[in-house]
């Protein structure tokens, strides 16, 4: 069992080892959905939900797999869990808010291939987190993902009005801003003990 305190896990996954800016997970949606604040925000909230639910399910499944001595099935079961959670969220949003469903469009099913989701499940297994630690880790890292996404979308909304050389427009510029953000986030290192 891992002896790290819950508060530290939260701060660590939210700011110090931010999933997007320092562990490089979830870059594709980070580049893809960050051009408008409203979409970025909604995407972030659905990702938080998917990550927390799939982390809880993955924790349960992992104990079951260990009891059955079938650890080699881990990757396969995790991906199935994530795909079904995403499907569930999709049906839920479609039923409760069709407008949001249309706004998220193709990005909703693509959460399945968001590496942040599988990343949380794999990291919590690799680090031997307890149940409470896993949930806090899932909350912290998914909120960290949303934080990075929202910051980036605010910057990109501003950029729309500025004059950028043609060559740098698009992904290259987003990556350079992300690099700068990543440098800024390094300032959090050492926080929380």
């Amino acid at each position: 069992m891992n002896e790290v305190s819950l508060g530290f896990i939260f701060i660590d996954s939210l700011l110090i080892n931010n999933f997007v800016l320092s562990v490089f997970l979830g870059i594709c949606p980070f580049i893809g959905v960050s051009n408008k604040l409203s979409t970025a925000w909604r995407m972030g909230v659905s990702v938080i939900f998917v990550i927390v639910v799939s982390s809880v399910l993955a924790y349960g499944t992992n104990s079951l797999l260990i009891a059955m001595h079938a650890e080699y099935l881990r990757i396969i079961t995790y991906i199935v869990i994530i795909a079904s959670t995403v499907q569930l969220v999709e049906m839920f949003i479609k039923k409760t808010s069709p407008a949001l469903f249309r706004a998220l469009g193709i990005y909703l099913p693509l959460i399945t291939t968001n590496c942040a989701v599988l990343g949380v499940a794999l990291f919590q297994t690799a680090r031997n987190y307890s149940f409470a630690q896993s949930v806090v880790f899932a909350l912290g890292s998914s909120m960290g993902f949303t934080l990075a996404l929202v910051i980036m979308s605010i910057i990109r909304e501003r950029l729309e009005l500025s004059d950028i050389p043609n060559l740098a427009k698009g992904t290259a510029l987003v990556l350079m801003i992300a690099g700068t953000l990543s440098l800024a986030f390094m300032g959090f290192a050492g926080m929380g003990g």
Partner: protein
Amino acid sequence: MGHDHGATVSPSENMEAFLNGLWKQNPVFVQVLGTCPTMAITNSARNAVAMGLATLFVLVFSNMLISMVRRLVQKQVRIATYILIIATFVTMVDYIIKAVSIDVYKALGPFIALIVVNCIILGRAEAFAGKNPVWQSILDGFGMGIGFFIALFCLGSVREILGAGTLFGFSLFGSNFQPWVLFLLPSGGFFTLASWLLVFAWWKERGKAKEAQA
């Protein structure tokens, strides 16, 4: 490339399936897919090579198997089937790397398992292997895999040379070199990929300008 007539494919088409991924449709520099592993593990050339080989293996074999079963799989469940096939090969790679070198296994960590969600692999399954004969799908897998490998190597070597002054662990500049540590840090990954994308964009623009002149 949508037609499907097995053995009667001309050699030039085979060649095209292979070269497409290598340069014209390079998965990282042109399509900007699979960026997460591209930046996460390219802080040294050795890690980049290991990751490139692992992805190449998964890409070739999953393309092959998906192309073999493409007539048996119902359209509605195809994505789920693809993911299961890919996950199986990734599990194999995970255990192979663990058996071959425990150092590399520790350095890559969970990023080996994360090959499952590398968009390049599912992208090729959906766009190519699900519609084309086996042999072409294998070639396509090789092309894309080697394209990805080259991209990883470009990033990994630049970051290791600038960030540590070494390549594959060999010192390049002697003892007076001041390493530019920024490039080994996460932000260095973002900056290096951005610079490569700029180089490619410039290359394309130059080609277009030449065509316009001629």
